[in-house]
């Protein structure tokens, strides 16, 4: 009881003390006199130093782990995003095909003497004043060193192409000049030599490593990226979690606006979407149509799209040795193209953010403007199938000579929108009497090699699909459709898994890929597209641009479908 009373008294005293403290006279403001006192001059104090501005930070989401900082070892799109922040190419290319010089002073051409008339000698002039983040200058020796390391057998690089095929020699004529000698004319050299996923690495850092270890495979720099020449320097790389980039004061364009850029890595798109909605990241990548309504609902994001030369397309096995006989008939292939309502799929499944391509080189300078996407015309589709001898059976499935028109559709599953799209194909083709057996699979199984008894190289399928396009965009080259690329026991690594062997196509392609005059080359590709369209060798479904969600708190954020983050140095916060 006594203890309880003591607490009450103490509480009252505290409250009273607080209340009474407010009754005293306020101390005089500076310059004012206390009551009854003569006024005094306010003491002069230095103004408070301005608080340093908050560092500008932006967090970007990626849905897969960039595997290495060293571009020699990987060329995934995710890794490319990292390279673009750290390492300079000779030039960047925006999705309008405009070249933006970086390491190079100018694009070598025959007009400026940078390329010899026969196309076999290239003289590359490097920009002066570009330095690595430790102050060392970027020179021709770095370019030549990069080439030497790519070609060295002791380095397990991802790819030596096109250097192993086209480059005879590469030397440093002086610190600012690289001399490249080609073994044969190569029309796409400007879109593949030290650009996009191929970048110049620092010789002064990595030569000692190579000399000591005999390889760059285990170099610390491959993870730390601590000496770079791009707009950012890598501060931290936690695999499958995040990367932290600090602005590079020595970047030749000047320090970027954003002081710290974080890349947060997500295992799947759901997690990225939740992080966007809850404001944990500012930019989301690889946004799909089904996510757009949820993002728009927040009123906090702009949706930006960059064409990148890729489309989602259906490929078909038409190899007479392995294909279903129906697939070797172009009328059947055309009927399938006419039976699929692609606009409906784009509107309903992808919320209308894509368009229907007409050709494999959709919306690029190589695209044939005379060709329009196959229309949706199930009536015409049925007529073509009837004319081809495939009559409707009692079970609703067409048949010919006792054989049902039943086709195997193999694809990479795991994405709900893709799964929904494929099931929709199944229904649409069923409406014209074609039965589709859907066979979902993983990437590693679907794309297993000929030597591993891969389904595709051995023709154990009828239709398949994935997102594909110009592997060296904006270069149009592809070896998918050449007769010589059909895999076999003698040539198991061929990529023509579709069995296409069209002599008309071969003739035009042989000319197109060695043509140095761009306009003539464009004309050649228009011919290629016409042949492919007439034969319906592929069925383009939808465009597949890079789609980004960008927070409205940011400004000057733009992307390129060729070099996604090439403009990161100019991003800013509002």
């Amino acid at each position: 009881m006594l203890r309880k009373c003591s607490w009450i008294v103490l509480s009252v005293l505290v409250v009273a003390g607080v209340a009474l403290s407010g009754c005293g006279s306020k101390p005089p403001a500076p310059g004012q006199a206390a009551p009854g006192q003569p006024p005094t001059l306010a003491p002069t104090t230095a103004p408070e130093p301005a608080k340093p501005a908050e560092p500008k930070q932006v967090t970007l989401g990626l849905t897969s782990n960039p595997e290495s900082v060293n571009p020699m070892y990987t060329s995934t799109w995710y890794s490319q995003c990292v390279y673009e922040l750290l390492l300079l190419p000779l030039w960047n290319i925006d999705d309008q095909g405009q070249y933006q010089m970086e390491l190079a002073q100018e694009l070598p051409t025959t007009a400026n003497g940078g390329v010899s008339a026969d196309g076999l000698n290239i003289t590359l002039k490097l920009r002066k004043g570009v330095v690595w983040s430790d102050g060392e200058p970027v020179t021709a020796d770095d370019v030549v060193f990069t080439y030497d390391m790519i070609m060295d057998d002791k380095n397990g690089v991802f790819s030596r192409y096109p250097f192993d095929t086209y480059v005879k020699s590469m030397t440093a004529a002086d610190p600012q000049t690289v001399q490249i000698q080609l073994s044969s004319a190569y029309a796409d050299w400007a879109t593949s030599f030290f650009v996009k996923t191929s970048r110049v690495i620092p010789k002064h850092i990595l030569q000692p490593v190579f000399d000591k270890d005999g390889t760059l495979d285990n170099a610390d720099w491959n993870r730390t990226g601590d000496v770079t020449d791009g707009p950012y320097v890598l501060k931290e790389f936690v695999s499958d979690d995040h990367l932290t980039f600090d602005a590079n004061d020595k970047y030749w364009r000047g320090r970027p606006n954003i002081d710290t850029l974080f890349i947060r890595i997500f295992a799947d798109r759901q997690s990225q979407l939740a992080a966007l909605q809850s404001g944990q990241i500012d930019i989301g990548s690889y946004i799909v149509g089904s996510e757009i309504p949820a993002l728009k609902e927040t009123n906090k994001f702009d949706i930006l799209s960059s064409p990148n030369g890729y489309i989602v397309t259906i490929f078909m096995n038409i190899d007479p040795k392995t294909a279903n006989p129906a697939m070797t008939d172009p009328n059947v292939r055309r009927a399938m193209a006419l039976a699929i309502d692609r606009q409906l799929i784009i509107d309903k499944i992808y919320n209308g953010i894509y368009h229907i391509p007409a050709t494999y080189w959709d919306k690029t300078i190589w695209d044939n403007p005379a060709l329009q996407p196959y229309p949706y015309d199930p009536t015409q589709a049925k007529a073509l199938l009837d004319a081809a001898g495939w009559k409707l059976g009692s079970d609703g499935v067409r048949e010919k000579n006792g054989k049902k028109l039943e086709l195997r559709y193999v694809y990479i599953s795991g994405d709900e929108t893709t799964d929904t799209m494929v099931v929709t194909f199944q229904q649409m083709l069923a409406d014209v009497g074609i039965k589709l057996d859907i066979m979902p699979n993983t990437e590693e199984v679907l794309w297993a090699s000929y030597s591993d008894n891969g389904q595709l190289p051995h023709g154990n399928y009828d239709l398949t699909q994935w997102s594909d396009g110009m592997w060296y965009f904006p270069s149009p080259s592809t070896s998918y459709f050449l007769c010589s690329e059909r895999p076999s026991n003698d040539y198991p690594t061929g990529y023509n898994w579709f069995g296409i062997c069209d002599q008309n196509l071969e003739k035009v392609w042989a000319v197109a890929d060695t043509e140095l005059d761009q306009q003539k080359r464009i004309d050649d590709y228009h011919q290629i597209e016409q042949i492919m369209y007439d034969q319906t060798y592929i069925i383009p479904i939808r465009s597949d641009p890079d789609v980004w969600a960008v927070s409205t708190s940011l400004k000057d954020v733009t992307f390129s479908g060729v070099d996604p983050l090439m403009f990161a140095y100019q991003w800013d916060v509002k």
Partner: protein
Amino acid sequence: MTRYILRRLLQAVPLLLIITALLFILTGSLGDPLAAFGGERRRLQPEDRARLERQLGLDKPMVEQYLIWLVGNDWMKVDLNGDGILDSYGTRKGVVRGDFGNSFQEKRPAIEVIGERIGNTLLLMVASEIIVIILALLVGTYSALHQYSFWDNFITTLSFIGYSMPIFWLALMLIYIFGVNFQRWGLPALPTVGMYDLGIGPTVGQVLLHMILPLTALSVVSLASYSRYVRSQMLEVIHQDYIRTAYAKGLPEQMVLRGHALKNAALPLVTIVGLDMPLLLGGTVVTEAIFGWPGMGRLFYKASNAGDIPVTMGILLIIAVLVVVFQLITDIVYTYFDPRIRYE
């Protein structure tokens, strides 16, 4: 006891050899590791594929690949440049000498890739296991002692709901309620991804905050099953004669429960926990993926999908070793709980 332990350890060697051989064959059959090199948007040139197969040893028969994985190839000559001449010594030392090989995907030592994740996974899984064991003992014991009471029925209902809940659904619901909707409603939202806020850094407070949602998702399902188990064991034990005798002797309830009932009821729980321990290191794929927790489960899923044999085999080997070791530890711990158990 010492002889018993030594005998078990010696028996483990051939056992592990058989396990790793079988796992290696299965892992090698998962798909083509080079199929996804470059990702969706780039394919390997034929020459590059042939070179990489040679450099990674994928052109060799499976048995040879296993032996190189086990004992290395630095003692024999290999054809480095593909000219058919065995001109250089290999660089692999083999697992028996601590070299797990280089990750095909990340191009660095597999043991380094795995080592970075172990701590993250143990943090989440051990915390979850501790919470689950403590709560399961408390909840299960209370339920057993108040059988068929309102709270027992309530706990039983919750257990069945928790046990039936798919963890991916629970994880996504937690994210959308506490992450997305809390923010929309103006309430303090919980972080839904990663181990800490990148702008703040890896402080203790940040990591604990980021652990809340994944721990909740992990614990709910396990707690449901463990608490039911504890309840049924306790019900069996508290009706035994020796418990009745203990009460008759006048011992306080707490002493009877802790000293007699729980010790006997916990014996089967020791088995379950002992079996679970090595699997803790495997992490949990779904929870780690959804919450962006960079742990072993997510790494294993990614590596096995991509055919990254060094990393996949590294993780499987570590788990296999831990299963053997923890089986032995469990047997030893039995002797503490039940003095009647002795090993020769």
